[in-house]
Structures are given as structure tokens and as C-alpha cells.
């Protein structure tokens, strides 16, 4: 034990012979280890965020969405032709598929909302009461839509947080009437929601959802008052579309039935295959995809990190070979004074391991700084380049790097291992030298 302590002390002394050289060697390992931890932390953060997003959609849900085909297909000489999900299909699915617990028909249109002189752009969503539950909407004041609203086709609406804030900066919105542009009828506000984080886009079939600008009304009211034909006035053009439902959100009784139910539903919608105007999205499937993605991501990141560590290791080896050559005479002296070959090996190994461990410890500290560094970067971007941050995908924008606990011992172990692996050859070469030859070297 004392022998080791002495070797370590002497090793550290030798490293101070060339402080700059030692520092640069340490830097190589430092970067390697820090990058292992950073890559793993950011990868974990992103995949957690993605997983959270998908989980919010619910593992027991199936989302059936209308997908707008290219304009050439839906618009002929006489005007737009209908596409997408039909109410009849909704009825049939609800009636014939036994595993379904609940189904929400949804219709979404972009509209402008008005209260007195204030105007807000947003999304008018026709839906049923379950919508709030499935989409994790929380009522702040008042209530969400109720069954009777649907049955009686009431003229009521529920406002998302931002809409309420914009239209009613000073007043209590409950009980007030808001107007929807291009329509003369009004809707009475019965509830206001808490703010909700937007969800990310998933694949090509499910776009990102930003709930903050929504106004919810009963789907039955929407059909009666607005109908299926929607004309959007662009700059000098009219764009019309005929669509009964944008989406049907299905929930099954038991998660194990999700995939089979989705298949059944898909079969029932075969008639859409030609136009390809309906997509079935299963969050559970996405969740599983996300898990495999995460694994692949980890492997990929690990590979990159491993490469950077090997580069660091080669740096160490390079330096140690130079050191051994430079200190040939010292090796000769030590051998003459009684050092065995193994003593020489140990001496040089201790030096390389000391270098790599110092680099590793520094790298671990830097690794722990990762979440703070990302937070700082996000703050800088938000302050000085808000445009840039808005253009980032939600998952990246919201990422919280998570330093994996096991990555710390892993990084440390790897750095020790690198020190031993890349230090062994120079050390053995030093020990193999003939002491007489070594002493003769100037």
C-alpha cells in the first residue's frame, strides 16, 4: 500500500515536469468524458420529453384523423368535393366495435373570435365533453361542455387560457357572449381553461397541437350553425372544403385491445384507401417506437462518445510514448537502483491513469453542469433570438437534460480503463528496455 502511495506521489511529480503537456492530455480525456455524460443526458432529456408528449395522448387511445388530399383531388369545376371522415362512419364505429369505451367526434376550423372590439385568431373546436379528459384539459373557472349542451345544441363555448386573456383582459368572461367572424350568432362563455403545454408533432400524421388558442363548442351546435362546408377567405381567393369530421378520438376499455381495435377501425375505413384521406394513429405504437428510438439514440450517442474517448486515449498513448523516450535515462537509473520491470510498468501506468482520472473527474463535473448550461443557452436564445427558438421542434425547445446516475461511474470507469489500456503499451515498452542501453542514452 505504501508502495502505491509512493508511486502515485512520484507519478504526480513527474507529471508536473511538463505541466502544459499534462494539461493538454487531461483535456483530451476531459472532453471525452464530458461528452459521454452530455450526450447521454441530452439524449435522455429528449427521449423523456418525447415519451411524455406521447403519454399525454394516452396509451389507451386511437386517433383517427382526416388528412386533406391535394387540392386537385378535392376541388373540381363545380367546387370542392367532400373528403375525410363521415359522421356515419363515426356512428358505425361506435355501434359495432365492442372494445371501444368512448369516442369523440371532433371538427376544427380556424376562425377569428370577437368580443366587443377585441379580436383573436384561434381554432374553433367542435367536440363532446370527453374531449377535456382525453386531452388533459383542466377547467380553471366555470365548466367544460356537458352532455346536455350536445343534446340541446346549446350556444355555449369554453375558452382556452390565452383566448380568455386576450378577449377579456379585465373582465370575467363567464356569462359573456363572443362572436365568431363571418357568422352573426354568438356563443355564451361557460368556462375558462388552465394553460396547457402544446404537444409535439408525431410522425407525419399527427401535427403539433397548441391548445392555447382554442374555443370549444358542442359538435352538434357546430354542425347546425356552421355546417360541413367551410369557406376560408384568403387574399383575393376563396378556399372551400367539405369535411364532416377532422378527427375521431377513440378510447378502449383495456390497453391490450388497442392494436386489435385500431386494425378493426382501419378495416372499416377501407373506402378511404383510394383518396388516402384518413390516417389512424396509435399513441401506444408511437410510444413503443419512441422506446426503440431511445435505445438506438443511446447506442449512437455512446458510439460517438466512445470515439471521442478513444481519441483522448490515443492522445494519452502518444504523450506517454514521448515521455518514455524522453525519460529513457530515468528508467535506466531506476533499473540500476533495483526497480523490477513490473515497478517500471506500474510507475508509467500510474502516471497515465492519474492523467485520465483527472480528466475523468473534470469531465464528470462538467457533465453535471449540463442541465444548467442548456438552461443558460435556452435563456440566451429566448432573450436574444426568440425567432430561432420558436423554429425549434417542441421536443428540443422543452428538453431538460437528465444526467443519468449510472453515466457517472461509467464515465469514471471508462476513463480509468482508457488510462490503463492506452498506458500499458508505453509502460511495457519502458520496462522492456535494457538498463545498460537506457543508462547510456543521453
Amino acid at each position, binding site marked *: 500500500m*505504501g*508502495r502505491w502511495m*509512493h508511486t502515485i506521489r*512520484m507519478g504526480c*511529480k*513527474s507529471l*508536473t*515536469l511538463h505541466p502544459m503537456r499534462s494539461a493538454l492530455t487531461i483535456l483530451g480525456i476531459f472532453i471525452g468524458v464530458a461528452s459521454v455524460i452530455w450526450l447521454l443526458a441530452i439524449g435522455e432529456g429528449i427521449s423523456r420529453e418525447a415519451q411524455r408528449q406521447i403519454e399525454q395522448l394516452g396509451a389507451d387511445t386511437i386517433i383517427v384523423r382526416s388528412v386533406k388530399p391535394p387540392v386537385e383531388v378535392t376541388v373540381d369545376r363545380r367546387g370542392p368535393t367532400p373528403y375525410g371522415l363521415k359522421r356515419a362512419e363515426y356512428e358505425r364505429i361506435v355501434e359495432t366495435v365492442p372494445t371501444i369505451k368512448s369516442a369523440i367526434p371532433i371538427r376544427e376550423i380556424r376562425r377569428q373570435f370577437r368580443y366587443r372590439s377585441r379580436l383573436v385568431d384561434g381554432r374553433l373546436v367542435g367536440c363532446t365533453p370527453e374531449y377535456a379528459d382525453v386531452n388533459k384539459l383542466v377547467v380553471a373557472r366555470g365548466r367544460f361542455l356537458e352532455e346536455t349542451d350536445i343534446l340541446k345544441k346549446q350556444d355555449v363555448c369554453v375558452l382556452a387560457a390565452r383566448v380568455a386573456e386576450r378577449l377579456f383582459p379585465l373582465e370575467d368572461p363567464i356569462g359573456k357572449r363572443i362572436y365568431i367572424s363571418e357568422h352573426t350568432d354568438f356563443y355564451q362563455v361557460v368556462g375558462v381553461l388552465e394553460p396547457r403545454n402544446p404537444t409535439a408533432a408525431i410522425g407525419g400524421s399527427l401535427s403539433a397541437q397548441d391548445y392555447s388558442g382554442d374555443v370549444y363548442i358542442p359538435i352538434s351546435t357546430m354542425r347546425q350553425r356552421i355546417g360541413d362546408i367551410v369557406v376560408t377567405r384568403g387574399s383575393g381567393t376563396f378556399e372551400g372544403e367539405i369535411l364532416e369530421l377532422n378527427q375521431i378520438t377513440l378510447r378502449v376499455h383495456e390497453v391490450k385491445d388497442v392494436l386489435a381495435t385500431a386494425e378493426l377501425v382501419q378495416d372499416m375505413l377501407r373506402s378511404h384507401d383510394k383518396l388516402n384521406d384518413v390516417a389512424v394513429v396509435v399513441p401506444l405504437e408511437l410510444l413503443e417506437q419512441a422506446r426503440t428510438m431511445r435505445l438506438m439514440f443511446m447506442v449512437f450517442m455512446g458510439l460517438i462518445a466512445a470515439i471521442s474517448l478513444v481519441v483522448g486515449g490515443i492522445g494519452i498513448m502518444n504523450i506517454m510514448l514521448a515521455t518514455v523516450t524522453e525519460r529513457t*535515462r*530515468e528508467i*535506466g*537509473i*531506476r*533499473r*540500476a*537502483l*533495483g*526497480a*523490477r*520491470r*513490473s*515497478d517500471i510498468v506500474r510507475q508509467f501506468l500510474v502516471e497515465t491513469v492519474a492523467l485520465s482520472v483527472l480528466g475523468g473527474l473534470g469531465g464528470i463535473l462538467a457533465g453535471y453542469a449540463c442541465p444548467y448550461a442548456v438552461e443558460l443557452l435556452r435563456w440566451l436564445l429566448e432573450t436574444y433570438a426568440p425567432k430561432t427558438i420558436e423554429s425549434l421542434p417542441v421536443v428540443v425547445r422543452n428538453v431538460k437534460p437528465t444526467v443519468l446516475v449510472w453515466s457517472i461511474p461509467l464515465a469514471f470507469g471508462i476513463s480509468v480503463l482508457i488510462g490503463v489500456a492506452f498506458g500499458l503499451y508505453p509502460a511495457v515498452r519502458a520496462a522492456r528496455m535494457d*538498463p*545498460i542501453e537506457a*543508462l547510456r542514452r543521453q
Partner: protein
Amino acid sequence: MTIAARCVDLKKDYVLKGETVHALRGVSFEVPEGDYVAIMGPSGSGKSTLLNLLGCLDRPTAGALFLGEDDVSTMTDDELSWIRATRIGFVFQSYNLIPQLTVVENIEVPLYYQGRLRASDRERCRQLAAMVGLGDRLRHRPAQLSGGQQQRVAIARSLVNDPFFILADEPTGNLDSQTTEEILALFERLNDDGKTIIMVTHEDEVARHTKRIIRLRDGMIQSDAPNTQRKHAGTSYWSMAGAAREGVRHG
């Protein structure tokens, strides 16, 4: 009388590109404890080769070499390392101190390879440093010392493991005449205290201080005789005043 080292028909061949060089062609002699031997001879006569064998840095091609009771000619590399660590003290022409270590640390090195390094050994290293006149330079590094001072550190180091004998290969080769005298005075004092010293030298002036002179020629002993005109080094150099004087000169 105890024998410190005994060579029996010692031979050493070097094979270089298929050609064999007979560096030693059968050398036999004994060095009793307390002897002070000079090995002399022209360049290439095999002096360094012999010294390397005596120092267990190399193994003979044939013949036997006894250090104390043990034949070291057939020992393994690790065993030879152990012999070097415990029984042999080296003094080199070019001092061969380890540059990054201080004076005391340099003196400690052989103990470290003996596997023992205790507080009492630390103290002993300090005493040895003081004995060679460097008690006030313990924390200095070799580069901060003069040649003579470095060689004195090397001598202290060669003594630390209490060896069977001290091997010195032209220990004064790099020193001026006055410093040479000082080193020789130190050797003489050590020999007076009972240390066995074997020294390779070119210079008759240096060899005159020893008790016995072995002359080599072409790898064989040409003559081996006691030194009848032994010259004693002046002890006055070796006062503290002498050490101080040198300190001023090089400091």
C-alpha cells in the same frame, strides 16, 4: 575475511550483426570486504562490461559471479533487480540523478525498490545527505546543484541500502581536479569506515588513491596488484568549510 565479490572465469560475448565480440575472455578475481579497487585499461578493454556484470545489470555468457554466497550469473531479471536494490551501490560518471526529485528523494530511491520506506529511513537519508555535506540542500533539485554536489548526492544514494560494495564507473570523469580530490577524499573516508569500493578509471592520478589496481587488456586481466604508492586524499577538503566554499563557488 569475508568476500564481497568473486569472479570465476567470467566471460562476456556480444553478438553484433552475426559477429561475436569477446568483451571479456575469462576474468577471475576476488574482492574482499573493505577493499578499494581501481579497474584500469585502455578503451575497449572491457572495464565497463565487467562493471556491468558486477553490478548485476547484465549476465555473463559463461563463468560464475558470487556476491556474498550467491551465484548471480544464473538469476532471473527480477532476482537481479532485488540484488541491485539490496547489495549494490552505483556511482556513475554522469551522476544519474532523477531530475524531478529533490536531494532527499533521490537518496531514497533504492529503499523504495527494496519495498521499505519508513520514517526512520527518511531520517537516515537526511543524515547521509548531511554526511556528504548537503544537509542544507535537502529540498534542492539536481539542476540546482553543481557537478560535485550532484556526485555527492549520488554517493549518498549508493550508501543508503548499505550495499556489499560500491561500483563507480569513472566517477570523477566529469569533474575538475579540485572536486575530484573532494570526491576521492569522500571515497577514502567511506573505505576507512569499511566500505568496499570498486572503481573504473582512466586516470593514474585517481587510481593512485586506491589500495589495489586491476589492469585489463582485450578482455583479460593483465595485472592485478596492490597499490604500493598509495596517495591519501587531504582531509582538509572535507571540512564543513570546504563544503561551504564550494557552495559559494557554484551557488
